[in-house]
């Protein structure tokens, strides 16, 4: 966040805190290690999204920051306060739960005002602050209702209200939108991001939905099996994934990943993808000198669906940078058309448990392409597909790490 804005928010009484997680590890009493040496730093006022498949330890991480779970090892700081042994109530952190966890016997106003009441803030001041929060969240009409009388979206807002009314040092949100229907989710996504930006409170947001992560976060941290994979701005994460898992997890439809072999034939480089070959321009190897060490060895190659195009639509593409394909499925989405075909190359397991099951044959893999709407292909057509080779991603086959240098 830019310094003048930080200064402005500070003047309005917003506590702008950095949050530091230093090698935080969680081992549950049953011996299960849910989080391994998680290190992350949140800048003042930053909106960080922690994303990963379900069961990877996102809630665990959040609950350790909240103080609802003990930290097995490592250090947690908010500002320069060491928080490991501080009670949840004294951490000055507000949390929005996936289930909202509203107090059913209290009205909306009482729910939102509860944190203030616990701080012994006078009734009048309390009403004022509750009203302010309710205005931000468009809840002023509902203040006298009980949670049971509200819709899902309204309940979600009340949970938000309870968090923002306190002006805490840090917001924690654990999949706050996952109980809403798709349309509302899109709207609330924008609303929450907007409110956060307006309030300027540092926010740690957890979700399993990568679209949510990409659209809301200043920065996105991808986690798998309790281990942080990569933390970067959404665009950087998308363009330069550090490993196969991040590459496959971020983006929808997923990146296509195959085992392929890069070789040099008569001074030209080419990628052997099953029974087809693609010419690889010199400059790709020039920008990634490490790739030369992988010549004539299998590597993992990744192709984003939008880096594939119907040759009939874009004909000015080098002919040796094209693949043959037979259209298996076609999904017209209006602005674009998704086309699925198969490629005779071994696919790569990215480790994302939610990924689609591959075709039965080990050496035949699914490929998804995102063609422009101008494409005229039909199911069963044999087509040529342009590959934007300069956008190819390369990964080590064994370590699954990106080959970028």
């Amino acid at each position: 966040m830019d310094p003048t804005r930080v200064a402005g928010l500070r003047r309005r009484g917003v506590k702008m805190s950095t949050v530091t997680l230093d090698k935080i590890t969680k081992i549950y009493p049953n011996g299960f290690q849910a989080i391994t040496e998680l290190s992350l730093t949140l800048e003042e006022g930053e909106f960080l999204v922690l994303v990963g498949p379900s069961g990877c330890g996102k809630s665990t991480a959040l609950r350790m920051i909240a103080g609802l779970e003990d930290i097995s090892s490592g250090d947690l700081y908010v500002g320069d306060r060491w928080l490991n042994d501080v009670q949840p109530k004294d951490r000055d952190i507000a949390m929005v739960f996936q289930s909202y966890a509203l107090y059913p016997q209290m009205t909306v106003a009482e729910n939102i005002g509860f944190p203030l009441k616990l701080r012994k803030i006078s009734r009048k001041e309390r009403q004022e602050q509750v009203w302010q929060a309710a205005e931000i969240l468009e809840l002023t009409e509902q203040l006298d209702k009980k949670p049971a009388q509200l819709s899902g979206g309204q309940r979600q807002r009340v949970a938000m209200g309870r968090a923002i009314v306190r002006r805490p040092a840090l917001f924690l949100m654990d999949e706050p939108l996952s109980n809403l229907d798709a349309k509302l989710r899109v709207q609330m996504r924008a609303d929450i991001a907007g409110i956060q930006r307006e309030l300027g409170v540092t926010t740690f947001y957890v979700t399993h939905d990568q679209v949510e992560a990409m659209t809301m976060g200043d920065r996105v941290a991808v986690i798998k099996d309790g281990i942080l994979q990569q933390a970067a701005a959404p665009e950087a994460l998308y363009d330069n994934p550090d490993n196969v898992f991040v590459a496959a997890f971020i983006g929808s439809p997923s990146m296509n990943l195959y085992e392929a072999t890069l070789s040099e034939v008569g001074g030209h480089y080419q990628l052997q993808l099953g029974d087809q070959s693609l010419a690889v321009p010199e400059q790709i190897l020039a920008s990634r000198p490490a790739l030369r060490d992988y010549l004539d060895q299998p590597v993992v190659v990744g192709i984003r669906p939008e880096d594939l195009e119907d040759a009939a639509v874009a004909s000015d593409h080098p002919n040796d940078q094209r693949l043959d394909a037979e259209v298996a499925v076609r999904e017209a989405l209006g602005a674009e058309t998704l086309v699925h075909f198969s490629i005779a190359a071994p696919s790569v397991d990215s480790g994302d448990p939610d990924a689609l099951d591959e075709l039965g044959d080990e050496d035949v893999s699914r490929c998804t392409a995102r063609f422009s709407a101008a494409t005229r292909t039909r199911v069963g057509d044999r087509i040529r597909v342009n590959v934007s080779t300069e956008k190819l991603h390369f990964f080590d086959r064994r370590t699954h790490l990106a080959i970028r240098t």
Partner: protein
Amino acid sequence: MRRSSTLSRIGLHATMLVLVVWSILPFIWTFQTSIKFTRDVAAKKPVLWGYETTANAYRAFWLDEDDINMWSVLVYILVVAVICLILGQIGRRVRHSWPWFTAAVGVIFVALWRFPKVWEVNDEYDFLVNSIVVTVLTMLISLSIGLLAGYGLARYTGISGAVILIVALGFRALPRTAFVLPYFFGAKEIDDWLASSGVGSWDFPLIDFPGIDTLQILDTRLAIVLALVAVNQPFTIWMFRSFFIEVPKEIEEAAMMDGATRLQAFRRVIIPMMWPAIIATGLFTMLLAYNEYLFVRVLAPTEWTLPVAIVSLTGGESSRTITEAAAASVSITLPIVVVIILFQKHLVKGLGAGAVKG
């Protein structure tokens, strides 16, 4: 209910009607008997209606002198009820209901206290007071223990928690008769020790227990309360546990994030959600304590409560007329009937506790 045919619906209603009549007829008979003259009750040909009514039986049961006007007694009770009602109405307007609640209890207390001094009363009045004391104390203690234990056992998932619950269930399944003798002999042992060591007749400085010369357990209301709390505990613990389990852990955690201590979270967020459970469990406990016969009979040979007292009316040397026995029976049942009607909704909720919610 659309699918069930008219025929089966008629059958269902007919069955329910028979059951209701079956259970309510004895009560109607008792009530009728209590307001009849003895000659109508003893008549060869039953007098079902058109008989002359009288409060003689009630007078005889409650009051020493026969010529006290029953109307003045009724007016007295009515005045007390009206005061309580007014307090209740005031309490509705005041957000916090504790003041009126305390005031109402105070009024009833004073009313009970003053009652015997306004009129000469029979021993039965003492039995009523015993019943009330035993019931209220049993409820207070059982509910307090049950709430805390139920909460703990709902949140703690270790193996020892399961063991405690299963053992509790086992004790619940044993009949009263299995407990009453051990309790009796245990209490007797303690009393013997109190007497022989002199602790029982200790004169505590500054503290003067009214009406108690020597400390003992047997034949006191305390003995009954202790025994009842013990046998009732498995029920309250299971009952509260089933309610607590339905309270998501996140609600407490949310309260703690909002700045509450664990105790504050329990008191200000969880307990208010528990009122239906507290009322339902309280009602069941009340019924148990108020109706108890065996423990009172064995553990408190002279400190009777009403159910034991009523037995003396139908047999033994203090046997009285059948109308008086009926009056006693109605007098004992009426408070419970009123309470049950008031809290009927909660009772049904309590019975359905733990059932899967649609």
